[in-house]
């Protein structure tokens, strides 16, 4: 164990040193020149029908969408978050875009436009089945333990373009495919679980998503199966002026386990783009899901022009006894982030964990946190939130801990730390704690600190440049959360931490 620790520490360092070589502030800011087929601008019932038709959906799915659309028309955009949201004209967006040569879904990766594959390779995503997460392994020859497989589902604009390792997963009984495929191939599972965690009219953005989602990922882990590899989805918005509305549904049946990774990027554009995703996790008896996100949508430029508006509803339903969920998120991108991955702890002895790093720089705004709803007995939740604010950014942690009347002996621990860089940014902590059972215990700790001049001087006196020093200190501040991430994601996340804070000092 000792050696592992040291090697890991040393690898951390490798990561930092490669940061500089990564290049521009937003490394994913390229766009791919592929012919794109759009649905007409705006949103109405015909658009919803069109999306459904494009995906060859059965009628029940279309009805579900239309029901959502009709509910959505009556809903108002929420305004309770500590965000200044420019008015969004929902009729001035494209709700469907796909690469033009993908009218027929590719049957294998060989049929995918090479330009798409090139894009993914630029993003460092291994799409071909032979590849592991090659970048990481090549950069760190010392690290031999990480030669493991990761199955990837890649979603480009609105369409899933390819899922890897399908056969191998199938032999384990695991279903991992795009949600559009699942609707056709596994309608019973989809019907049973879709919308069962996040109901169609749950909130304005989730409702919009239910009406217009075009694709996303679907995972089913059967009873007693430990998923043989990590599953991963990469989302990328490429087309201009397009909203991306993906929907993810993961079901972990009794006694199963899966670790799922989600990464996101978008090109650099002057226009803001809308992203409203929904993720539903269903966890049955004794099952466990780990869900990790590295969100790196384009954050806009330093004056706040452009960037993704990220309105995401993520919720895990721990239905089963002893079920377990762990959300880990690293939020470095987006102009606006509105996101509260939540845990509904229904099953007795179920537990939910939420680890979060949210970094805002320049004009970015984030209002993010979690909800822990304790309903079952002996349920446990843990929240570790690290907010980092630089430039003129505003960063809010908003978290609800609710312990219901029947939830005997339940526990919550919340730790909420904010770090400020410079004196023009803001950090806010808004905890809501509602306890309706006298046997429950909820603890909340919060700190706010600044990157210390003495720490910077100390690092620099040892020869470390100022930006590297900031990255080092901030990565130290985030350590508990970074450690909760799978290894290759942790490295990516460390790079992102450094990149997102470039230009924040001096």
């Amino acid at each position, binding site marked *: 164990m000792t050696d592992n620790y040291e090697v890991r520490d040393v690898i951390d*360092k490798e990561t930092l040193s490669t940061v500089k070589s990564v290049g521009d502030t937003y490394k994913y800011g390229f766009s791919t020149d592929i012919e794109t087929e759009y649905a007409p601008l705006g949103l109405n019932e015909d658009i919803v029908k069109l999306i459904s038709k494009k995906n060859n959906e059965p009628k029940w799915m279309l009805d579900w969408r239309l029901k959502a659309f009709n509910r959505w028309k009556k809903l108002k955009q929420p305004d309770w978050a500590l965000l200044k949201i420019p008015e969004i004209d929902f009729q001035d967006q494209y709700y469907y875009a796909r690469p033009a040569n993908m009218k027929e879904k590719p049957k294998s990766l060989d049929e995918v436009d090479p330009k798409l594959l090139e894009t993914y390779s630029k993003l460092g995503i291994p799409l071909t089945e032979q590849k592991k997460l090659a970048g990481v392994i090549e950069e760190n020859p010392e690290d031999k333990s990480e030669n493991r497989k990761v199955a990837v589902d890649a979603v480009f604009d609105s369409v899933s373009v390819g899922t890897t390792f399908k056969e191998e997963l199938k032999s384990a009984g695991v279903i991992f495919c795009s949600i559009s495929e699942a609707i056709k191939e596994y309608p019973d599972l989809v019907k049973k679980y879709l919308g069962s965690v996040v109901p169609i009219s749950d909130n304005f953005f989730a409702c919009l998503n239910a009406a217009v989602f075009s694709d996303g990922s679907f995972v089913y882990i059967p009873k007693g199966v430990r998923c043989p590899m990590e599953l991963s989805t990469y989302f990328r918005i490429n087309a201009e002026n397009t909203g991306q509305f993906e929907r993810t549904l993961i079901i972990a049946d009794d006694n199963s386990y899966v670790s799922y990774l989600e990464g996101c990027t978008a090109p650099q554009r002057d226009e803001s783009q809308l992203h409203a995703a929904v993720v539903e996790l269903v966890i049955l008896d004794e099952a466990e899901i780990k869900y990790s996100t590295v969100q790196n949508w384009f954050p806009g430029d330093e004056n706040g022009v452009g960037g993704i508006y990220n309105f995401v509803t993520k919720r895990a339903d721990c239905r089963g006894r002893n079920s377990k969920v762990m959300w880990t998120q690293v939020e470095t991108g987006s102009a606006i982030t509105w996101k509260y991955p939540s845990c509904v702890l229904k099953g007795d002895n179920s537990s939910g964990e939420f680890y979060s790093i949210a970094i805002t720089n320049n004009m970015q705004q984030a209002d993010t946190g979690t909800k822990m709803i304790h309903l079952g007995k002996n349920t446990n939740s843990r929240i570790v939130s690290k907010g980092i604010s630089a430039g003129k950014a505003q960063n809010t942690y908003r978290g609800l801990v609710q312990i219901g009347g029947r939830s005997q002996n339940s526990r919550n621990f919340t730790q909420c730390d904010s770090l400020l860089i410079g004196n023009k940014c803001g950090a806010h902590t808004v905890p809501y704690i509602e306890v309706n059972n006298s046997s429950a215990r909820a603890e909340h700790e919060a700190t706010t600190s600044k990157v210390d001049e003495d720490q910077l001087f100390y690092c620099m*006196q040892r*020869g470390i440049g100022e930006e*590297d020093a900031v990255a080092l200190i901030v990565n130290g501040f985030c350590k508990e959360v970074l450690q909760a991430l799978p290894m290759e994601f942790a490295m990516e996340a460390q790079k992102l931490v450094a990149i997102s804070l470039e230009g924040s000092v001096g």
Partner: protein
Amino acid sequence: MLNIDDLKVSLEEEEKQIIKGLSLSIKPGEVHAIMGPNGSGKSTLSSVLAGKDGYIIDSGTVNFDGSDLLEAEVEERAALGIFMAFQYPIEIPGVGNMNFLRTALNSQRKTRGQEELNAADFLKLVRGIAKDLEISDEMMKRPVNVGASGGEKKRNEILQMCLLEPRFVILDETDSGLDVDAMKLVSKGVNNFSSSSRSFLVITHYQRLLNYIVPDFVHIMVDGRIVKTGDKTLALHVEETGYKDFLQLGKGKH
């Protein structure tokens, strides 16, 4: 190696001059000690040499191996070979010692145009030094200086020094907070490290450290100036009589 010529330095915040015309020349292999009462400007001198923010250079020059030191950034000075052992080593939560050391070493090597050290060579190097300084593996795994005792922190400073191999070392009140055993260990580290090409500037309030790290020159600093220079016996004199003999010298030199 280091030439300070008529240096005058003020605090940025309150326009108060702290160093009021200080000249000092240090050759390779020499050990110089600066002693003085509280508030005489000793620590300001070390901060200015290392390049800390918050000071204004009113006049004077500092030349290090032919280059203008005051023009260089903090990390550039470090890469040139200037190392300051802090009086109060700084804690950096969450950043492991190993990670910190390797980042520092390779940053310096990069600045100097040298190749970075690979993980295996680095580990071997660090472990060797840590062993000599009786620093445990367990401590090496901790975050930088977090939860360390005063003595452990100072040993950690010496470890950093040995690893980074500077040519000019400032020991800023390194003896403060050390018991005799720790002081011996730290001094041993320093003495093993000293060579004919390395120089030391030992800043201290008390004479006792100089029993272990023996200076070639002792300077008494009062009110922003060096008022008396001698050999190691000068430190013994201070030990006996205190600084009162020198206070007048500081005032009379306008």
